[in-house]
């Protein structure tokens, strides 16, 4: 993948502040992507998201579906040999996006119209709406 980098260190600082994680702890072994149950749906692999964060290439992450597909299952966090809590980094990016706009990422009207357990709706609203 070739990128034209537009370094956004302010956003990286914000990501680290919200997540409490140091993205430079990651040494790109790919364990997170190997075990991620959602990776086949993602356009960027989880380790690629961290790499882009390290490079300050925030625009590349914003256009990607990856952070929204992460369901905070914590598998990557349990397996990361460097102790990086990737679930928190994904949440930080989601929140930065949601806080920047007036729109929900997926508004309630676009959620499925069938009988669902309450926890499905509440958790989806918590992750996808402002």
């Amino acid at each position: 993948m070739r990128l034209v980098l537009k370094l956004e260190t302010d956003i990286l600082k914000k990501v680290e502040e919200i997540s409490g994680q140091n993205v430079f702890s990651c040494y790109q072994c790919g364990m997170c992507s190997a075990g991620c149950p959602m990776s086949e749906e993602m356009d960027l692999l989880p380790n690629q998201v961290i790499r882009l964060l390290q490079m300050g290439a925030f625009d590349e992450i914003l256009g990607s579906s990856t952070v929204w597909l992460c369901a905070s299952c914590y598998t990557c966090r349990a397996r990361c040999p460097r102790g990086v809590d990737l679930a928190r980094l994904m949440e930080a990016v989601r929140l930065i996006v949601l806080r920047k706009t007036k729109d929900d990422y997926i508004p309630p009207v676009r959620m499925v119209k069938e009988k669902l357990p309450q926890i499905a709706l509440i958790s989806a609203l918590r992750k996808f709406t402002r």
Partner: protein
Amino acid sequence: MKLAYFPGCTLKTTAKKLETSALAVAGALGLKIEELPNWNCCGTVYSLASDDLIKQLASIRNLARAQSFEYKTIVTLCSMCYNTLAQANILVKNDGEKLKKINEFMSEEEDYRGEVEVKHFLTLFKEFGFENIKKIVKKPLSKLKVACYYGCLLLRPKRVGIDDCEQPHILEDLVLSLGAEPVNFPYQVECCGSYHTAVKPEIVAMRAYRILENARENGADLVITSCPLCYFNLKDRQRDVKRLYAGFKEMPILYFTEIMADALGIT
């Protein structure tokens, strides 16, 4: 010791079967479980951000309420409630400043001191002893091959996990004590897709298929779980699985307390 039971949003409605069977089992085991008065939703997912304390409030309110009724322990049946309450509890236990902020914000409750313990119902069996459960089984589930599905939130993150996060065995221990046979089940800790069921059902159906086929390949007659969301995704999403994968045969999904109630002869 009396225990406060925290039902959470789903147990009174779509997961009524889990509540009914679990309370019957608790009765048979002689556990003193009482529903926490005036409980509210825990928030379902623990906030992973360090700068939005407001999202921890729902969980802490419940813990403060348990404290005000002099309960030392709060017990949940739902894996998501367990995870959210337990993580919020650890957060305020380790961060006095955040606890103080939350306490100042809550006007009706007494100040939470961070001393209530959050437990999942399954861990009570461990304390009761699987050998003792075996003794009160009336109808052993012999010849039944059971796949034990844990999902994510009972086991991860490690600091709240009730068992080993890669190779748990608490459900297998239970299944053995009921006279059934737990099958090898590598996909038992794999995420089912969780809340994506509300936005992208097909993504969840693909995961459910993988998990259920893994159980079937290993000879399972049925799959048990403790989480109402996993239950829905593995059971109700089989409709979508059938559409996506020709020849898929239904797999029965039950709450762990349902097969337990059967074995104890209380259903």
